[in-house]
């Protein structure tokens, strides 16, 4: 039996693998080139803008709803008993798990992505607000009482400032969950956005683009975390001698 000598197919396979490897392995220079090109053409700015708009809208809505949910739970024991464990549980659910629900209810649409962001971030905000309000030291409430504060003054002068660190922590966590949810959502559907650019890079087999966009996502995430939340949180904590 003559031995099979598949020399030529093997060569083809090697060539193919080499090409694939080059496409799949990014280089610093390649990433830089991609970024420069992307910004020069305005594609990345547009993507950044679209994602920023979505996260802003989604997070604002989540802060509003989550804040309301947290306040209701802190203020009314029956609501707390009813929604408390659920809030804690759902908060632990990765936002990606909401994607199928979003697609089912809203189809491949802008609303589906927004839905993901809102549910991804809302429960972390609610938890922060609830626990912050619930954990105001009873002694500080007594101080308010002995000074004869009205119910409303008690809330504005004692409860909210005392709960502020926890509320901020909740908002910060909610933001980062929302940001992740947005990226997941944009992978599925988006007319423009960083997640969309990521998919485009994959479809084009362009590793440099994929990594370049990842870098952008990371940078924006860290920037908001540090610059927006970090600065406010540091000020609030430093005042109270907590940082």
């Amino acid at each position, binding site marked *: 039996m003559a031995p099979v000598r598949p020399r030529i197919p093997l060569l083809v396979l090697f060539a193919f693998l080499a090409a694939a490897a080059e496409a799949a392995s990014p280089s610093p220079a390649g990433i830089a080139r991609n970024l420069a090109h992307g910004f020069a053409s305005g594609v990345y700015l547009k993507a950044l803008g679209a994602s920023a708009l979505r996260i802003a809208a989604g997070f604002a809505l989540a802060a509003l709803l989550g804040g309301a949910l947290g306040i209701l739970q802190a203020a009314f024991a029956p609501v707390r008993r009813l929604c408390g464990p659920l809030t804690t549980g759902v908060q632990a659910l990765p936002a990606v798990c909401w994607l199928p629900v979003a697609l089912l209810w809203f189809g491949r649409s802008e609303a589906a992505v927004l839905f993901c962001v809102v549910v991804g971030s809302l429960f972390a905000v609610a938890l922060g607000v609830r626990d912050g309000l619930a954990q105001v*030291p009873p*002694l*500080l409430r*007594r*101080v308010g*009482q*002995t*000074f*004869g504060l009205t119910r409303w003054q008690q809330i504005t*002068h*004692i409860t909210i*400032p*005392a709960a*502020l660190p926890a509320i901020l922590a909740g908002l910060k966590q909610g933001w980062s969950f929302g940001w992740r949810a947005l990226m997941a959502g944009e992978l599925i559907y988006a007319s423009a956005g960083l997640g969309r650019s990521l998919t485009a890079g994959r479809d084009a087999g362009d590793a440099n683009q994929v990594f370049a966009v990842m870098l952008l996502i990371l940078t924006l995430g860290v920037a908001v975390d540090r610059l927006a939340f970090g600065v406010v949180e540091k000020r*609030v904590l430093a*005042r*109270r*001698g907590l940082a």
Partner: protein
Amino acid sequence: MPFALHDPPVRPAALEAPKLSLRGASKRFGGLVALADVSLDVRRGEFLSLVGPSGCGKSTLLHLLAGFEKPDDGAALMDGRPIAGPGPDRLVIFQDPALLPWLTVADNIGFGLPKKPRELYEETVGLLLRLVHLEKFAHLRPHELSGGMKQRVALARALAVDPQVLLMDEPFAALDPQTRELLHLELQRLWLGLHKTVVFVTHSVEEAVRLSDRIAIMATQPGRIRRVLDVDLPHPRDFNSPEVAELRAAIREEMRDELAKLARREGDEGWRR
């Protein structure tokens, strides 16, 4: 009813009327009788201390006067009217200074003051800062202060709203002896100058003897008042004088009984367990 007829107020009686009083007041928490049928008058402008072993209900008594709690039976009165709830006419100072950590020393002191007009607010806070010798620390936050300084801020914050009564719940118990000594002098100076009615809860006999016009010794289980002693000694008091020593010993003797009772009871319960 502007034309309703009233008996004219009888001035001497009104002057002698107690500032605060408990009339047969009882308080239970679940099965525990914290206070049983306590009657006590606090005279206008006096410094009254409540001493007694832990669990004798002295804090509960103070909370009835503060309006944090309502008596189950009997009544808690101020100027003859039932105490409906807490309020700035009876300011409470706690063992923990309970300052607001997000406010500066100055704004903590001004907590109970109207913020407008601004000049008046700042002037009043400035006066109070000087009163408790903290003018150099006006812009610090509570976490930057020592325990004694914090309690002085709490005192100034209370005095700011010009309360008729100060209710002090072991305010110096957490301080070191030297700081406590300083605050005794400070409180005494303020009390002698401002003529507030003070009810002062403490477990320190020294503290009570040093500061008080009268000392109510409390008994445990159920909490009640065992005896009220007058302290007719001039201020400031010399701790080495025979009168002070005698009084201290007498109170200790009274309290020893109570402590022995408490120890027996705890021993009993321990044995039963």
